[in-house]
């Protein structure tokens, strides 16, 4: 039996949560679970299938926590701000890049720009020949050495700014000290800790201790996955003292690690750095007992480690999201003059919605920190937080019962990807209504359009995220009717 182990995904290029179904058994279980008033039995299932079933029933809790953390954390706010600014720079370049004349687009541009004439010619030699002896003519972008100063021409300046923002995102996202001996602890993995703790708590509430214990054991047997790594590392603090891990204290550790202020601590605000410092501190001084006072606990850790407070971090996140909105507003006229008003309005609506969502989350969490930290209290407080959009992806449009015509008749559904098979248009992904709270700040249509723009940006610029299926698919649609063929630069 091929078991799907990972059903979710949070990627801030889509401002909601994503559920991905890779086999029909998993989808059928999800449908039955959603339709049932009581939890479906799982104890009769084989070990693998039981893990799959428990994952399906709890994945929304996991992804929703990622979604909420996104609006609270300075790390996410910084990455988002740089991504949006990078996209704005890229959009200004787009008319120049796709103009008539050239017939191919080297990607990622960051690699192509670093190649000299001879190196570029070598890359072109490996493209299959065009009919009638036509030559490959790449888009005209300047040579730019890594670390170069800002060029004088407008196109060069846009590229330079785009690459600089991209490098800044890489600096934020990758912590070299966290990568050793084939294991890695990067900022995004710190985000996994609260999400998996909330998910385990969801299973505990729905199915009880036996199934929650089974789920954790199954996870820990996995050779390598991000959840296991973080759980093991965190639990070691308790294991070394022959104690059972307190999930609320573990969740508090994750929240404190994520909520550092870069303005106050510079690189020491990196979630990996804060987590490592806190872990060592607790190892040396002992693990506190949970006393229903997250604020006091956080303050004690910040004081002991001479690092910024959680309130500093949340305030910085809120301000950072507001600054991104201001930056886009200030560029709106310029963007509109180059691309028309559609894209500039989209970016304005989106950054405004995200800024409002951050404001709402910071107010809600600061108003009751305990509710965000105690995993069971969090589960019962989501109605006070921002409501996530829900996107479902059905790999390969596998479910014949889901034609685009039928799906679009269902109120509130917005189809993202569909394809034709045997005369029917099958849905591969769509956004569905999901209302766990009344606090919604971004529409499904805007979130999907922004997701497509981000994917196109990643395809043109990024040398890591480009393998993502959404990125590849968006690019293939964008270039399908274009006179340009994209080709990969191998360096």
């Amino acid at each position: 039996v091929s078991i799907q182990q990972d059903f979710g995904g949070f990627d801030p290029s889509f401002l909601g949560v994503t559920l991905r179904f890779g086999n029909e058994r998993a989808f059928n279980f999800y449908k039955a679970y959603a339709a049932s008033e009581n939890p479906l039995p799982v104890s009769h299932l084989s070990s693998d299938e039981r893990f799959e079933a428990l994952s399906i029933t709890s994945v929304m809790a996991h992804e929703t926590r990622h979604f909420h953390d996104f609006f609270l954390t300075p790390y996410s706010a910084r990455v988002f701000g740089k991504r949006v600014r990078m996209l704005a720079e890229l959009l200004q370049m787009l008319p120049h890049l796709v103009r008539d004349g050239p017939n191919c687009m080297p990607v990622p541009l960051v690699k192509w720009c670093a190649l000299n004439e001879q190196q570029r010619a070598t890359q072109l030699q490996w493209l299959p020949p065009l009919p009638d002896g036509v030559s490959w003519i790449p888009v005209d972008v300047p040579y730019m050495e890594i670390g170069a100063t800002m060029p004088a021409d407008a196109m060069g300046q846009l590229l330079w700014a785009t690459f600089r923002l991209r490098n800044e995102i890489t600096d934020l996202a990758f912590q070299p000290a966290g990568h050793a001996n084939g294991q890695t602890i990067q900022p995004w993995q710190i985000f996994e800790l609260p999400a998996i703790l909330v998910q385990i708590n969801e299973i505990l509430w729905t199915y009880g201790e036996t199934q929650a214990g089974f789920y954790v054991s199954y996870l820990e047997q996995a050779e390598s996955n991000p959840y296991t790594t973080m759980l093991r590392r965190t639990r070691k603090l308790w294991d070394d003292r022959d104690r059972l891990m307190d999930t609320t204290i573990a969740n508090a550790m994750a929240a404190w690690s994520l909520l550092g202020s870069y303005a106050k601590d510079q690189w020491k605000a990196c979630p990996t750095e804060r987590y490592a410092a806190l872990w060592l501190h607790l190892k040396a001084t002992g693990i506190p007992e949970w006393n229903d006072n997250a604020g006091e606990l956080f303050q004690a850790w910040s004081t002991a480690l001479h690092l910024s407070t959680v309130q500093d971090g949340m305030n910085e996140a809120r301000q950072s999201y507001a600054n991104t909105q201001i930056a886009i507003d200030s560029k709106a006229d310029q963007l509109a003059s180059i691309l028309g008003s559609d894209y500039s309005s989209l970016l304005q609506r989106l950054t405004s919605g995200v800024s409002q969502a951050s404001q709402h989350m910071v107010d809600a969490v600061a108003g009751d920190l305990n509710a965000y930290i105690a995993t069971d209290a969090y589960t019962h407080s989501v109605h006070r937080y921002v409501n996530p959009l829900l996107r479902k992806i059905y790999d390969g449009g596998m479910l014949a019962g889901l034609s685009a015509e039928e799906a679009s008749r269902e109120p509130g559904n917005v189809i993202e990807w569909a394809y034709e098979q045997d005369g029917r248009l099958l849905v591969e992904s769509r956004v569905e209504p999901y209302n766990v709270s009344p606090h919604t700040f971004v529409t499904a249509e805007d979130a999907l359009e922004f997701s497509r723009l981000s994917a196109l940006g990643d395809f043109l610029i990024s040398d890591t995220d480009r393998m993502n299926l959404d990125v590849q698919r968006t690019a293939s649609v964008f270039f399908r009717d274009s006179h340009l063929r994209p080709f990969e630069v191998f360096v």
Partner: protein
Amino acid sequence: MSETALRLKIIADSEFADALKAEAVARPADLVIESERNEKDATKLGFDLADAVSIVAIVKGAIDAATFAAKIYGWWHDSKKKKPRYKVILQTPLRTLELHSNIPVTQAEIQRFLEASAIKTK
């Protein structure tokens, strides 16, 4: 008779990469490793492991697409039996093919993928 060559990028775990490199050592005239680098955070490429290897190789001479597709399929098949979520990315300048344990790919599909990006050298 015309000969073809292919420039291919492969992103995979070290076991798959070692098999590829061993083949290059055994057939130096037909398979050349042009560059190799570690992907510093392969989890961002969708790999479960921290370390993945990115190799650019030139396939030429006596290795045709069918032969090389059989090799790739064999390495892929052997590794995915041992690992629940296994993935290899094959990329030519104009196309990308992802071998993923959740998405079945046949040897014939790999062959077609390779053939579509080959260039004539003679």
